[in-house]
């Protein structure tokens, strides 16, 4: 009961939090027909700043961290990413009116990670004063890449079975390479390596870190406008996608929260880390995922998976997911 009240209280407060306010602002102005344009170059730059900030911050922390502490959470990230896709394969893909490859692509996107949702969670934790192992955001690729790979592999198995009855072998490495070479993971990993190996403290503290929240606010505005713009696409596909997009983020987040709590019991993984793990699981990729899936599962309809993720999945993951995990953590750790 207290949990519910705490969650609702947080929900109300969060509507005033800047990230969410910009997200909702974006939805509202798009709905009102605003012609506001954020140039593509600024959008890309916001994303770059975000990923560099998360990467460098993570890298600087890993230096100080005990590497063995990271093993279990990293393994969990992989397990969660893979599990989400299989769950989608046996639920969404079985629903009437849903094409199997569209469903697999959607599950892949929801298994992958949204850098901007993760960034919002980082800001919320900092505002709430909840400590977290700063290397946790660096687990991003451990969940992201496996989810995309498994989705592409499952889709190809399905397609080759449909066609010929027998399975054609799927090459894994090109999919991994393509993910890593994509702009999102490159920036994140570059930041990670720079933070780990070089003296970037000054430029981090004087540039990437202070500007991070501002650019995040702009990115949220864009994502809000985008969420509204994509709604019309979602209307063209089976309504099951909308149902999945509401339920899946919270289900995935809670699953990850539970596994994170097990890690807490086993190795002392902290509450902030658990929340971030849940946020990553509950988020759906908005930057790197779609083009990878478009290339890897070309027969899948992007209106289905991008529509579900951008229009509903991301708003749900941010608006409902983040306060839910924070409330859960408060209930469990500061009862």
């Amino acid at each position, binding site marked *: 009961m207290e949990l519910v009240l705490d969650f609702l209280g947080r929900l109300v407060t969060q509507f005033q939090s800047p990230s969410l306010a910009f997200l909702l602002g974006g939805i509202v102005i798009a709905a009102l027909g605003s012609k506001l344009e954020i140039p593509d170059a600024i959008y890309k730059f916001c994303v770059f700043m975000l990923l560099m900030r998360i990467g460098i911050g993570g890298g600087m922390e890993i230096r100080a961290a005990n590497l063995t502490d990271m093993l279990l959470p990293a393994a969990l990230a992989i397990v969660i990413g893979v599990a989400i896709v299989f769950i989608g394969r046996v639920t969404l893909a079985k629903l009437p009116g849903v094409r199997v490859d569209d469903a697999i692509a959607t599950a892949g996107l929801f298994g992958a990670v949204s850098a901007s949702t993760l960034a919002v969670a980082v800001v919320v934790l900092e505002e709430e004063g909840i400590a977290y192992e700063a290397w946790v955001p660096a687990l991003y690729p451990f969940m992201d890449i496996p989810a995309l790979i498994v989705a592409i592999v499952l889709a190809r198995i399905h397609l080759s079975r449909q066609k010929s009855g027998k399975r054609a072998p799927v090459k894994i490495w090109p999919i991994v390479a393509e993910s890593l070479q994509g702009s999102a993971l490159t920036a994140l990993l570059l930041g990670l390596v720079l933070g780990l190996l070089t003296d970037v403290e000054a430029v981090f503290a004087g540039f990437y870190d202070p500007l991070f929240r501002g650019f995040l606010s702009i990115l949220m505005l*864009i994502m809000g406008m*985008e969420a509204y713009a994509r709604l019309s696409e979602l209307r063209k596909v089976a309504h099951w996608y909308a149902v999945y997009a509401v339920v899946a983020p919270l289900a995935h987040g809670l699953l990850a929260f539970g596994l994170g709590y097990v890690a807490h019991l086993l190795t002392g993984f902290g509450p902030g880390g658990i929340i971030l793990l849940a946020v990553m699981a509950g988020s759906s990729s908005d930057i790197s995922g779609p083009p990878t899936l*478009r290339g890897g599962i070309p027969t899948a309809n992007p209106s289905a998976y991008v529509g579900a993720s951008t229009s509903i999945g991301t708003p749900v993951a941010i608006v409902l997911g983040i306060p839910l995990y924070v409330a859960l953590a408060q209930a469990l750790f500061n009862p």
Partner: protein
Amino acid sequence: MTHKATKVVIITEKLVLRQVTGIIEAAGATGYTIVAAGGKGSRGMRSTSRPSVVDEFGNVKIEVITRSREMADRITEEVAARLFENYSGITYLEEVEVLRSAKF
């Protein structure tokens, strides 16, 4: 002195640009020109690699001046066969006159 040549125009999703230029180079064309484009077609939407609100130019328009009509047809058919089942796009041909005949 000018002489006749055939221009192939391909309008498709930016995502498959590399595959298109691969087909063009494999066909032996001497070059190609790329322009960023937006548009609307039968599929109604474009590739989704980035927010549509910030990027009206999710398509590319690729033009190839070909020496021979056969090369033009080969490129057109290859692109249509290999890409247009899964990606949106159109292709068409135009007759042009080139000046530096030696180049093509």
